C-alpha cells in the first residue's frame, strides 16, 4: 500500500493519456460484455426450456396457422397429458416504437401449461372471467407505466382494427429467459372478431415422459403428414435451440467482433504503457540507484497496468450491466431476459487480467532489465 501513491502519481503524469487509455479499456469491455450477453441471452432460451413440453407448428411455414380441430387429436396421442395453443397477434401500441410480443392464448390451459409465468390467484381469476382481459409482464409495466384496470388499445396489423383490452393481471417470470414483456389475451376474443382467419398459430403439448418425445413427435407428424396442414413437432427445448440456431452466424460474428475489439485495445493499452515506460527510463534508473530491485520495478509497472485495466473493466462492465436497465433494452421484446450474467462478468474480469499482463509485461520487463549505468548516462 505504501507504494500506491507512487503508482498513482505515475498514472497522473499524463492525465489525458491515462483517461483515454482507461476509456479504451472500458469501451472494449463494455462491447465485449454486451455482445457476449446477446449470445448468452440467445442461448438461455434453449437452456431453460422444458423438455417435457412439445410444440407443433405448420411444417410449411411458421406463419401459416393450424386447424383448431388438431387440438382434440393431439390430446389423444399417447403420452400427451395436456394441450394448449397460441397465436401471434402482431399489433402495435401508440407510435409502435416500443416493440413487445402479443399472444392470443387459451387462458386456462395456457397458464396451466406455463407455471413459470407466476400470476397472483385473484388476478388469474379476473383474467379468466373477462373475455377482453389481458395479462402483461412486469417489463411492460416498467416500459409503459400500465397498471391493473387500465384499458389498452392496440392497432392490429395482421388482424386490422383497434383492439381494446383491460389489464387484469401482471405476471412475473420465475425464470428470466421467459421474458417479462409479453402481452397475452383471450384467443376467443380474437377468434370472435375474425373467425374466418383466426386459427391457432401453434400447439403446445405437455408429455408425461421426456424420453417419449421422439415417439410423440413421430406420431403427431405422421398423423398430419398427408393433411392440408402438415406439422413439424419438437420439444420446446429443441424449438428454442432451433430459434437460437437461426442466429448462429450472428453469434459467431458477435464473438469475433468482441475478441477483435479486445485485441485492438490490448495493442492500444500496450502502446500507451510502452510510451510511459520509454519516457521514464531515467526515473527507473534513479529508483534502482536508490535501491529498488528489478523485481519491485517489475511489480510497480504491472500494478500500473492493472490499475488502468481494472478501472476500465469496472467502468465497462458496470456500463454493460446498466445498459438494459437504463435504456430499457431488455424491454424491446426481441431478447427477453437480456442481462449480463455472472459468467460474463467473470470472463470480463479474466479479459481485464489478460489485458493487465499482456499490456504490462513488455514495459515491466523492459524496466526491470534496464541497465542502470547506461540509462543514467542517457539522462545525465
Amino acid at each position, binding site marked *: 500500500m505504501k507504494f500506491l501513491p507512487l503508482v498513482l502519481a505515475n498514472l497522473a503524469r499524463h492525465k489525458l493519456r491515462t483517461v483515454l487509455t482507461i476509456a479504451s479499456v472500458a469501451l472494449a469491455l463494455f462491447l465485449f460484455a454486451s455482445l457476449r450477453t446477446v449470445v448468452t441471452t440467445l442461448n438461455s432460451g434453449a437452456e431453460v426450456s422444458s423438455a417435457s413440453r412439445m410444440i407443433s407448428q405448420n411444417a410449411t411455414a411458421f406463419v401459416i396457422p393450424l386447424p383448431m380441430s388438431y387440438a382434440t387429436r393431439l390430446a389423444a396421442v399417447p403420452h400427451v397429458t395436456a394441450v394448449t395453443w397460441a397465436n401471434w397477434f402482431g399489433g402495435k401500441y401508440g407510435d409502435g416504437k416500443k416493440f413487445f410480443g402479443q399472444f392470443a392464448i387459451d387462458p386456462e390451459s395456457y397458464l396451466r401449461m406455463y407455471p413459470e409465468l407466476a400470476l397472483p390467484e385473484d388476478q388469474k381469476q379476473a383474467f379468466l372471467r373477462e373475455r377482453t382481459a389481458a395479462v402483461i409482464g412486469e417489463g411492460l409495466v416498467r416500459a409503459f407505466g400500465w397498471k391493473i384496470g387500465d384499458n389498452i388499445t392496440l392497432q392490429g396489423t395482421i388482424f386490422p382494427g383497434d383492439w381494446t383490452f383491460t389489464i387484469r393481471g401482471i405476471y412475473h417470470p420465475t425464470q428470466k429467459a421467459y421474458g417479462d414483456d409479453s402481452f397475452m389475451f383471450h384467443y376467443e376474443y380474437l377468434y370472435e372478431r375474425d373467425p374466418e382467419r383466426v386459427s391457432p398459430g401453434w400447439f403446445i403439448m405437455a408429455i408425461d415422459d421426456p424420453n417419449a418425445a421422439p415417439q410423440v413427435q413421430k406420431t403427431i407428424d405422421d398423423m398430419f403428414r398427408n393433411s392440408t396442414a402438415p406439422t413439424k413437432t419438437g420439444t420446446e427445448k429443441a424449438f428454442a435451440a432451433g430459434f437460437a440456431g437461426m442466429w448462429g452466424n450472428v453469434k459467431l460474428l458477435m464473438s469475433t467482433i468482441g475478441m477483435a475489439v479486445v485485441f485492438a485495445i490490448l495493442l492500444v493499452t500496450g502502446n500507451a504503457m510502452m510510451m510511459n515506460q520509454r519516457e521514464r527510463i531515467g526515473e527507473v534508473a534513479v529508483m534502482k540507484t*536508490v535501491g529498488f530491485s528489478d523485481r519491485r520495478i517489475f511489480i510497480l509497472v504491472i500494478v500500473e497496468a492493472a490499475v488502468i485495466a481494472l478501472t476500465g473493466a469496472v467502468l465497462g462492465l458496470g456500463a454493460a450491466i446498466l445498459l438494459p436497465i437504463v435504456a430499457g433494452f431488455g424491454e424491446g421484446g426481441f431478447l427477453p431476459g437480456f442481462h449480463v450474467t455472472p459468467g460474463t462478468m467473470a470472463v470480463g474480469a479474466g479479459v481485464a487480467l489478460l489485458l493487465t499482463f499482456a499490456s504490462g509485461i513488455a514495459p515491466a520487463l523492459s524496466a526491470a532489465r534496464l541497465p542502470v549505468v547506461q540509462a543514467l548516462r542517457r*539522462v*545525465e
Partner: protein
Amino acid sequence: MALVEIRDVHKSFTRDTQTVDVYTGLTVDFDEGSFTALMGPSGSGKSTLLNLVAGLDKPTSGEVKVAGAMVSSMNASQLAGWRARHVGFVFQSYNLLPVLTAQQNVELPLLLTSLSKKERAERVAIALGVVGLEDRVDHYPRQLSGGQEQRVSIARAIVADPTLILLDEPTGQLDAKSSEEVLVLLQRLNDEFKKTIIVVTHDARAAERAKSVLHLDKGVLVEAVAR
C-alpha cells in the same frame, strides 16, 4: 580505517568492436569519515569509480569492498538491497521524480524499509530540515530552483542514514551561490554527521571543501592530496 577498499580493479568496455580499458589494476582506499574529491579530465574514470563503489556497475576483475561487504560479487538483487541500506547517491542533474513532491522524493528510499508512515514522515522532516527546505515539502521539482532541487536530492541521499554518500558532479549545473550552499551542506554532513563522502567534480571550490583530493588520469591514480 578503510571503509571502501578497491583492490586491483580492471574495468573495460566494449564499444562496437573496440575494447576500451578504463582501469588496469586500480587500487585505492577511502577511509571511514573521509570527504574525498575525485578529479581528473573527462574520460579518466571518475564516474565509473563512483558507479563501482555504488554497486551500479561491476569490475571486469578485482575486488570492491565496502564496510566489509564484497560488493563486486553480489548479484543484482543483493546489490539493490545493499544500496538501499548503505549508499546515498546524488546526481549532477538532480534526477528528482517530477511527479512526486519534495517530501515524496525524499521518502523514496524509506519505502524500501520497514518504517511506519509516521516514522518515515519524521525522517523526511529531519532530512529536509538538514538541507534547509522544511518549508518546501509540498513543492514539486518544477516549483524549485536548481539549488533547491539539488538540496532535495541530497536530503534523499541522507534520509536512510547511509554508510556512504556518493555525489557525481553535484554542483555541475548550479550557479556560484547555489554551489556554495551545497558545498557547505556537504561539509556539514561530513563534519557534523561524520558521513563518508566521495564526490566526483571538476569544480575547484568543491575540491577545496574536501579533506582529500584524488586525481585520476586515464584510469590511473596520479596524485593524492590530503588536507
